[in-house]
């Protein structure tokens, strides 16, 4: 039987709840640590909720991701060529057809924070045995909160990617974020220092970011961006 999905949450209406859940699963799959055990089969694991929220932020906000990566590689643009996936090509892909602005996913009623409150979505997925949410409850500095994409979840993500071609975008973005997360995690999202000097968080929340990305791309690489064929 088809179970019905609530279209509203406590935090406000979410008419695209299924889309949010599917995106989270793809992020868990590509940004999580792959673990393959005889007992549990193939799973993915992320070590904290905050980390999952950060992965999600960078995937949801392709404009921010492009600006942050350009800032990060600004001092040594030649190192971009060593990256895999290639950051320069990824930014050109985001510029193609204004994708960095068009594919921006805004959170419903989440003006107070850039990070999504994942409690509801994780409960939803846990109840359906796609993932497990495992807090350690330990009162120590070693406190962890593992979010594990279980074997049925891994299979479900593969099913999504097979039947939903538009989710290819999230696959590419997740891979890019996972590969460059060591650079991205240095940025404090309360300050968003990578936006300066032309932008600040409030302006970046409303304006299209494509013109700023193009300018910064040209400043970084010395030539204008050519939109990649996606």
């Amino acid at each position, binding site marked *: 039987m088809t179970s019905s999905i609530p279209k509203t949450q406590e935090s406000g209406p979410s008419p695209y709840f299924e889309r949010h859940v599917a995106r989270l699963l793809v992020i868990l799959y590509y940004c999580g640590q792959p673990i393959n055990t005889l007992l549990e089969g193939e799973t993915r694991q992320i070590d904290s909720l905050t980390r999952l929220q950060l992965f999600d932020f960078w995937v949801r906000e392709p404009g921010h991701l492009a600006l942050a990566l350009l800032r990060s590689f600004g001092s040594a643009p030649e190192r971009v060529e060593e990256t895999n996936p290639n950051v320069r090509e990824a930014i050109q892909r985001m510029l193609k057809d204004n994708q960095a602005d068009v594919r*921006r*996913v805004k959170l419903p009623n989440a003006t107070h924070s850039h990070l999504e409150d994942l409690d509801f979505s994780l*409960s939803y997925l846990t*109840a359906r045995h796609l993932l497990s949410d495992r807090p350690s409850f330990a009162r120590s500095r070693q406190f962890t909160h593992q979010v594990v994409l279980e074997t049925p979840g891994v299979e479900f993500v593969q099913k999504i990617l097979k039947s*939903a071609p538009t989710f290819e975008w999230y696959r590419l973005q997740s891979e890019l974020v996972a590969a460059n997360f060591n650079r991205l995690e240095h940025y404090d999202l309360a300050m968003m220092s990578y936006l300066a000097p032309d932008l600040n968080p409030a302006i970046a929340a409303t304006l299209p970011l494509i013109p700023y990305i193009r300018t910064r791309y040209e400043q970084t690489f010395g030539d204008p961006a050519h939109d990649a064929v996606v």
Partner: protein
Amino acid sequence: MMLSFEKLIQETTQTLAPTNPAITETLVRDVLTDAGIDDSLRDTAPTPQGRLIVHGVTIIGQKVNGDGVLEPFQYQRKLGTGLWAWVGSNGTGKSTILNCILWAITGSDSGIPKRIRPWLHDILVEFSVGEAQFTSHIIRANDGVTGGIYHGFVGLNMIDLGTAQPFTLFATRDEMREAIDLFFMQQLGITTLRWTAHSGEKDDPDLHAHSTTWRTYAHAIHIDDDSYDHLIIDPMKGYGRQDRKILEMMLGIEQSRTVAEIQVQADFAKEAYGRARSRVSGKRSNVTDQIAALEQESRQVQQALATVEVPQTPVESDNSFVALRERRAATLAEQNQLIEEIAALDAQQAGLERNMLEVEREKVALREQGEVEYLVNSLVVTRCPHCESAVNDQQRMATEKQQQTCHVCSQPIQRARIQGDIRTILRERDQDLASLRAVLKRVQQDIVDRENRLDVGQDEAARLGRELETNVKQAREGFSTTYANLLVRKGQIDGQLEQLRRSLAEMDAEQNEVETAARWHLILQTAAEIADESVFAVYENAFAQLGDLVVQLATQFGVPDLEKVIIDEKRYVKLYQGGMQIGHNDLARSERVKFKVAFHLALMLLQVRNGLGRHPDFLIIDTPGTAEIDEADLVAMTKDLARIHTEYGGVVQIIVATARPEALQNLPPELTATAMNGAFF
């Protein structure tokens, strides 16, 4: 020959160009493309026709009996193709049964009296569309309406146990209407047609576009005493264009959507033209009056100057000084105004771009949602999200069914969308985008125009400034006070006159905009008429066949001397009776009822016999003309219905209710339910 975009452009140009040289083929193409007509014509594609058959009705509730005591009842009847009847005197409940069926398949319960509504609790109607079988279930409670449409013929037990597979579910009255509308439009291959109307709201002078829904089209499958003759369009009564849309959709006229869309755009263009005209005409007459008054005063000042004797040499230079200053002031004022207008237009452009981006984002969200919604919804809860212990599946479904809330989040359970919903919303967003792009184009053009004017004005102001610098050195000596005052006044008048004449020139430019708006309206209205005529020409034969069939049936039902029925190019139904052309309204009241039944039957039979149109081959006739039709005519009418049953009973379904016992003579006894001495429930 079917209408194509190129043909529409050619014919519109050929019609308008002889009297309007400014209208060229390029202009017509631009206007029609900007209005999105090319897309509309491209999207016109025939969709399959579905046949609707009701297979059973169950009504459960409790009624108030004669002693004022509540008494539970359950009414059930199996139905199928052919002629099915309820015969019973007034108050036996036959109309209520028919209206319950209508409620379940159209979402409208307007036919059920308010007194009866609290009696009804569950309505279950089993029906098929083509080969597919469905069950529509409505639960009515004091706090609202819930229910859904399920796959297959399912009983209340299956729905209660949660084993029935829902196609769509609804939790409120609005959702019910929306869900049923969408379901039947998709299943029957019926599309939405748009039309315009002014809002009835206070302080809302705007023209709004409205869309026809399945509930609108359902007028073609239902006849009762109170319904006016939607499809029989009489010029004397002035029925609206949506009635034409029902008729054309039932006749399967594929390009009605294009004609309707052009007409909608033409209506909006007419509205824009009217507003532009009223904006310009008032101001222009006001400025013309001011110029006339100032010219009069200027002549008086000139005469006064001529009578004062003064040295002549400095007059000319001083005059030019005053005039230059006034002109420079006017130029600078105009520049300031232009700068303000450009700023406002820039803000408008930014707003439009933001809106377009939002629409693009929504389209992406809809596409993604459409691809994963069913997949994610098909996941079943298997364990508690907190302790991760297993959940009893049956218990969960029973609880959710009982409380209508999700047991995980306690939110009300709402229906899942279907692919069709998402496609419809995507199409609407594409239309929104096209309109926003057209507005953006106009705003960008306005900005360019104003910037050009600003450049010209800045050059002019600089030149005047230089001239003033040279003139300021000229002395003003030897004038008497009177003479000086007159000179100053003359300078002021000349300056004001120049400013007003400049404003007048701007208004003439605005007048050009009005003329552009008028051309838009003319082109779109002409294109709408041409498209309409073209569609009529293609389908003239269908209208003629409909007319012939109506004559045949109406004559059998007892409309005397009816010679022919013609549906003209305006879709007006013209009747020829006794050698005279009359309107439907000119028929006697009893004849009107018979004609109405004949018209609806003809529309249905045309589909059955000739495969014309998209009528669902289903008709409900509720107490037709109980008071107006005499016994012999009612017997004749039922005889013809019985003949249709014999001939086409395997493919069509007609459901009849009547209070007249003489109808029993012809109605098939095995398919007729009677309640002459009691009530149906």
